[in-house]
């Protein structure tokens, strides 16, 4: 392809425009970087709480107990729900695993607050028990502070994993948290026990 004189058509652009172009390029990169940074910046992880709280309303399972704390309206947590669903679908030992999806209902909010796509998704999942965490009591008991926080306890109540199950905010796909849980569930051998959590905060701003 010959472009004999096409490059000559750029005569109309002055230096100012070139500067604007360069500035724009920088802005794009900045924006792009901010966006990537935001999406890759995890939220607060859970406060380590030790073993499975006794006062939890959640019944500890006889095997592993998987608890995922979700804000009913967090957009990023849809990816977490999706990963949870896939995790549980791929697990071969549904009976060994008791999965809870704790749906936050902050103080002062009615039960309608929990209605939404996340609740619907959770309700459609067979092997997940949805627990409406009224006033975020369970979140506080387990120390979950970010939607998508997922914990895995063994039969003695020891926390085997606590972290997020998405690679970034709202990103569905392979991630370390799901891999760790899968490995834990499958073999009982820990890989990593902590991953960043990407999601909305479960704590109401004081």
């Amino acid at each position, binding site marked *: *392809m*010959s*472009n004999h*004189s*096409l*490059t000559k*058509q*750029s005569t*109309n*652009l002055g230096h100012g*425009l*070139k500067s*604007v*172009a360069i500035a*724009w*390029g920088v*802005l*794009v990169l900045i*924006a*792009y970087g*901010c*966006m*990537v940074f*935001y*999406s*890759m910046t995890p939220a607060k992880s859970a406060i380590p709480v030790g073993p499975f709280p006794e006062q939890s309303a959640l019944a500890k399972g006889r095997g592993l107990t998987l608890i995922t704390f979700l*804000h009913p*309206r*967090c*957009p*990023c947590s849809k*990816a977490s729900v999706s990963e949870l669903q896939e995790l549980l679908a791929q697990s071969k030992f549904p009976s060994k695993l008791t999965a809870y999806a704790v749906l*936050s209902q*902050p*103080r*002062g*909010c009615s039960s309608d*607050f929990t209605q939404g796509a996340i609740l619907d998704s959770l309700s459609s999942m067979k092997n997940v028990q949805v627990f409406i965490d009224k006033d*975020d009591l369970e979140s506080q008991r387990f120390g979950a502070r970010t*939607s998508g926080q997922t914990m895995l306890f063994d039969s003695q109540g020891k926390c085997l994993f606590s972290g997020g199950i*998405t*690679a*970034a905010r*709202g*990103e*569905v*796909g*392979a*991630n*370390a948290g799901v*891999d760790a849980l899968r490995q834990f569930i499958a073999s009982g051998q820990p890989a990593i026990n902590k991953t960043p959590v990407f999601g*909305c*905060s*479960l*704590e*109401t*701003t004081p």
Partner: protein
Amino acid sequence: MNTTKINGVKLFDWTDRKSLVANSPLAEKIYKQERLSVCQQTDRMFGWLMIMQWLASILVALVVSPYTWAGRDAFIHPHIFFVTVFGSAITAFPVYLAFRHAGEPVTRFVMAVCQMLYSGMLIHLTGGRIETHFHIFGSLAFLSFYRDWRVLAVASLVTLFDHALRGIYIPESIYGVALASPWRTVEHVWWVLFEDVFLISAGYQSLSAMMNNANKQAELEVTRLRVEELVTERTGQLDASENRYRVLCETAPLGIFQTTPDGKCIYINMRFAEIFGLTYEEALRDGWSHTVPADQLDYVATAWLDAVSGDGNFDLQFRINSEKPCWVHSKASRVVAAKDGVETYVGTVEDVTEQVMAEQARLERALVQARLASIVESSNDAIVGKSIQGVISSWNPAAERLFGWTSAEMIGGTISPLLPDDKREEDAANLSRILSGEKVGEFETVRLCKDGRAIDVALVCSLMLDDQGQAIGVSAIYRDISQRKEVEKRLSEFYSTISHELRSPLTSIRGALSLIDDKIIDMGSDECYEMIGVARSSSERLVRLINDILDIKKIEAGKLELKLEKIDATTLVARAVAGMDGLARAENIQLIQDIAFSATVDVDIDRIIQVLTNLISNAIKFSSDGGCVIVGLHLQTDSDLRFSVADHGAGIPVHLQSRLFQRFQQVDSSDTRPKEGTGLGLALSKAIVEEHKGLIGVYSSPETGSTFWFDLPIVGSIAKEALIPSLGAATILLVEDDDNIAQFVRLSLLKHGYQIVRVGAISEATAILSLSRPGLILLDLNLPDGNGLDILRYLKEEFPDEAVPVIVTTGVALDKLSLAYPVVLDCFFKPFDMSLLVKSVEKVITAAPSRRILLVEDDQATRSVIARQLEAIGATCMEASNGLEALNVVDTFVPDLIVLDVGLPKLDGFEVISALQKGPFAFVPLLVYSAQELTESDRRRLSLGLTRYLDKGRISPKEFIDSVQELLGHLKVGS
């Protein structure tokens, strides 16, 4: 074009650079413009895509992640910030470039970068969902619209770097995995490059096609420009031509027009309107037909319609209405438009008034000249034109007739041949007087003809002047006054004659009365009575002369009145003969009546008798002592009766015959003439006959004498059968066409008492012979309608048992006449001796025997007297006292004549005639001798053959006998 295949797909051969070579700068320009247009369009599309993507991002963000939460507290999700703020910032620049700098290279490069970053962002937001990677391929495909591989290269590089960097550092963002193999980036980039190859190839093909189109378009443009140049050039030429023709049309001295077939004007020039006296608008709107006068309209319309329906050519000259006479000549031809076949007529109109007027003037002048020439040519006067030098320049036909010289002989010469020697001085003197300007009136002189004769002429000479009044010659008009001189001479002679004729009887009267008055002769003595007789006869002569003169005056004044009444022609002849009997006896001349036919004529009896008397008097005058005058009556045609008076005198020279019937003409008017006369008799006779619608003439020869004749119309019609004479045994049929010879023979035989029927042609002879045969045929062989032998053959064929004797007269020697017809008794060669002919005739038939007359009269005394009278003339009289007896008498014979009284006992005359009208008596002559007044109807009932009606109380015995002899002596036919 060389092609490269990749996976079986043909790609453009990169090494072939011809496809992107512009054939011309214009092609290159078009190509660049096309590429720029494509880039601009693509930039704008991307601009809108950017906007849509940005809005879609906002929408998606609002839908998917509108808030971020902290417990129950909701906050605007950062995505919203990203897409609205960062998104708009990111989108604004490319959009700005797309709409403000469309087509600029930086625009599309920015588009490429932005679009691919958008793809990367989308991939990141979806966590590397494979579906979002397709945005890259779609974006590349869209970017290929630029047909610029550099754009694709930039986009691909952005994708490469994006995949590479994120694949290394945040693989979750690009691939959705925490850990990605570098090959995955290679694999993604490979697919990008894979697509690039096809996109670039397609783009190049598109560019090639674009170049090809540009080349073609350039060629078309060049062609178009060339065509435009040609069109412009031709348009200019057409404009120039149109202007030229417009100028020609507008300035042409002819009116130019274009019309539809029905004459409506489509185009006219100003001259057209001027010629027809119209304004331009009027002519276009209303046409020109209303300027044609009504008397020309049909003429013009017919010619136009003929042209339209015919060959399309119109050529006519006609008059139009105008303040002054105006003629135009118009021509037009049919023009059919090639494009739509519309028919129009294009032509010219020319004002030809001057030419027409000039032609009319020329024609008028020519007509005047022709008339003048005609006057000269037709003039009875000789008109001779001479130059001043006396050279003859014109010589009209009258001059030729008068002088005998032709125009060719005289023109160029002088009139010297015309001048008698004693007139030369006179002519020269007159010429000099005329040339001096003196008017010379008409004068009488003498000129010579070509044959040497001197003629009396009246001459008028005048000077000929030209238009400037200069003398150019002399015209001489000669009028032949010979006749006038002759008339004057004759008048002089007439007056001399009249004087003599008047003085002679006056002298006799005076002398005779003087002798008595002077007592030289005793009163009562024989001498006295003699003198009284002399005076009386002289006075009667004087009366006749005066009457003739007065009649001449009446003729001259056209006041000759006729008292017409119907009368039998025989009566006229009888009266005339009776009136001249005394003179004839005195001159020892025999008067013979030759009544071959009679009929009723409507005449002035006295005047006709005057004519007959005059002719008989002349005949007696010019007959020698002992001669005879034959007064004849014959059927000339089926409507004319011929009266003739023949004598055996000296005859009249031919050169005098033509003047006989002129006034004051005498055969010999000298003082030594043997006979008296005024020279008015024949002129009077001619006038009288012509007044009766008749003809008069004479045929004469020194050998046979003269026969004066006149024809009068017959009253009523002639029965066809009556036209054919009936012959008897005592009749001689004379077949002779020569009137003189026939008259001579006829008279001679009549004198010997023979009955003669004369015909002049074979057809007449055979018509007569078919009904009856004569006792003898005198046959001339040289007849106008054939040879006389044809008559002999006719007789031989038709009547082989009848041998009619024939004597032949011929001028040609014939030896075999006897073989032609056995009864040719004799042959006489002309001129023959009449006495020998008579002798020959006498051998054949004798003279007519005694005639047998049937006399029907009831009065004994009258019957006796009449019988004696009849016997006195040699007739045998058979008497009958009543009608019945008369019929008994005719039972045994057919009389030659019946003398019949009408008032008869037993059967009156009407009944007798009625009985006799059938059979052989139909043509027997009849003399009705009765005291009874007979009407016309009575006369018709009382008729057989030749019939005469005599009044007993008025007819003298002599007249009776004359009538009898007349009826006995000739052919008897019905009337």
